[in-house]
């Protein structure tokens, strides 16, 4: 642990090292469990887990933005598109055969999205409520259409995404996976492992950020921007940073999505994608990373479940496919009307209410935690 702390020291400077260690341990345990589950799953389920991972990364970034800094973005589908195209273009150039190609592509996707995040975040920081909603919704529609305008982006039929074959992965990875799961790695499990590894890393980073001074500033801006400004917080800067971090997560998610779908085309990045991401974070509870994970799980598994349900209720296949968006829409409406804190938030308030009545000490503890 000491060694870990010294390695991560510079990174951990703005935070007390205790939460970082806690986040790392939780993430490690979660990742090991995820590996075991993925290894034991069918290839079909592996593709669902991989999908859940990239949705969770995007939702994690979005929940941080909306929940902590109070900015709504309906444009995260567009940012995922940017990430997906960036990663695809890199993989196309490099051939996408090695692990290094994959990581370079994902890093480029994150970098490009950071840039786009700043460009979008600066004007967005000046908007609020319905205005930022309308502007980011327009962004979600406008950006994917650019693929039709420029030939290099492949038009409506999109760009094919090369992904590494499992046999070409380094031997140590193949051995490692064999060690942990007793199943040989293949293309499907590779993408699922990769997704969950990056998910764990992203969530550690986001959790630390939200615990740090930066995160506290975001919350201050969200709760009362005038007081925050009086306290010396640069409102615009705080919002732009939040938007940029969130965009980087969306970019990584987009890159992973491209590899999983094996195609990057404008038809993947519809208004519906942006709205379902919103549904995921609202359902889980704005600002909650575990909530984002739950929401992403719903996104990855609900469509098949809901469609089956619809068909067994006597709907045709094409009608049954519409049950899913209805559920998402109902989720958005019901959560706002009945439980604005979402699943995790509601559970948390139940727990804290129970503990407040039972023990003064823990109530004090939770208050203290809130104020630090």
């Amino acid at each position, binding site marked *: 642990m000491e060694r870990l702390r010294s390695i991560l020291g510079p990174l951990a400077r703005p935070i007390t090292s205790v939460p970082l260690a806690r986040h790392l341990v939780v993430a490690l345990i979660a990742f090991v469990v995820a590996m075991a589950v993925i290894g034991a799953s069918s290839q079909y389920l592996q593709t669902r887990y991989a999908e859940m991972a990239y949705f969770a990364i995007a939702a994690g970034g979005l929940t941080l933005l909306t929940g902590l800094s109070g900015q709504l973005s309906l444009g995260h589908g567009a940012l995922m598109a940017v990430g997906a195209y960036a990663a695809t273009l890199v993989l196309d150039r490099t051939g996408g055969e090695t692990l290094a190609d994959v990581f370079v592509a994902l890093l480029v996707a994150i970098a490009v999205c950071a840039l786009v995040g700043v460009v979008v975040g600066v004007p967005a920081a000046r908007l609020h409520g319905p205005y930022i*909603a309308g502007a980011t919704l327009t962004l979600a529609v406008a950006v994917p259409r650019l693929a039709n*305008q420029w030939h290099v982006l492949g038009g409506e039929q999109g760009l094919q995404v090369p992904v590494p074959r499992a046999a070409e992965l380094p031997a140590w990875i193949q051995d490692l996976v064999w060690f942990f799961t007793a199943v040989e790695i293949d293309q499907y499990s590779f993408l699922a492992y990769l997704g969950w590894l990056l998910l764990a890393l992203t969530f550690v980073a986001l959790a630390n950020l939200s615990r740090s001074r930066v995160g506290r500033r975001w919350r201050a801006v969200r709760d009362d921007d005038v007081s925050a400004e009086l306290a010396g917080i640069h409102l615009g800067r705080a919002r732009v940073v939040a938007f940029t971090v969130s965009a980087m997560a969306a970019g990584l998610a987009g890159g992973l999505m491209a590899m999983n779908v094996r195609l990057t085309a404008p038809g993947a990045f519809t208004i519906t994608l942006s709205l379902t991401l919103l549904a995921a974070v609202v359902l889980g509870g704005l600002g909650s990373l575990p909530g984002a994970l739950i929401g992403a799980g719903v996104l990855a598994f609900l469509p098949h479940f809901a469609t089956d349900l619809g068909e067994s209720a006597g709907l045709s296949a094409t009608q049954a496919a519409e049950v899913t968006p209805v559920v998402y829409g109902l989720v958005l409406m019901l959560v706002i*009307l009945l439980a604005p804190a979402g699943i995790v938030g509601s559970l948390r308030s139940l727990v804290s209410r129970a503990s407040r009545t039972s023990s003064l000490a823990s109530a004090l503890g939770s208050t203290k935690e809130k104020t630090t």
Partner: protein
Amino acid sequence: MQQFLDTTLGGLVLGAVYAAFALALCLIWRSTRIVNFAQAAMAMVTTYIALSLLNADVPYWLAFLAALAAGFGLGAVIERVIIRPVEGKAELNAVILTLGLFMVLHGLTAITFGVQHRGFPAPVSTNAISVGDTSIGITPFGILTIVVVALVMAGLVVLFRFTDLGLRMRAAAFNGEVSRLLGVRVGRMLTLGWALAAAVGAVAGMLIAGGDLVNPAFMDPFVIYGFIAAVLGGLDSPLGSVIGGLILGLSLSYVTGYVGEHLAPLVALGILMVVLLVRPSGLFSAAAARRV
């Protein structure tokens, strides 16, 4: 020159429909300070109701009135049941709520009426009008569109300027507390505002569907273009909404005709951002400043 004329006329017709739609958003904004992102889906629902009637051989104008009535009822019910609880609450709540409503209406329509593309008839010809040997790029249906939107606007002006009901609606929207003290039934006025707005939206739906294919997503572009038109003119100003609609219709028509269809939403986004950052109250807002 011919192409420029055709593009301009096409832009005016499109702009008229945007204007009607922006007007509907404006009515709701004035009464409840909410941007209704479900407006397009509501108009789509009423258009489908009209289509069902048309397919059952109901005359066109009767179906048109039915769409209006359905819009009026839908708007009233939605305000009373769904929107009332979030009025005056954090503005994010209303945004998310109307987006949820958008998805629900979308999906339910698809389940009820099917997702197929279906032809939607027009009451008059959709062939270009000819003057002598040359045909000009406007159709009788296009002219009808402009006339209907003008009538709707005139009707609203009469309602708000010259009737007691209109005065009470304006009072309720302007200051609910004071109006309530003066005996205006504010809740009812807000409901009426939503109902009227949804009826105007229904008109826009009927006009854009005529002579085209419809499917549950056919109104989706209006979610953004209607919003942009309304913001362009100033969400507060009905006249501004109309002019904003026309400006947007013309701009998008030129972009589509001369540059490329795919850049239209990007240009719209550019227009929106310039307005929001340079003149946040919109081009024609009465208010001196507004927080965007």
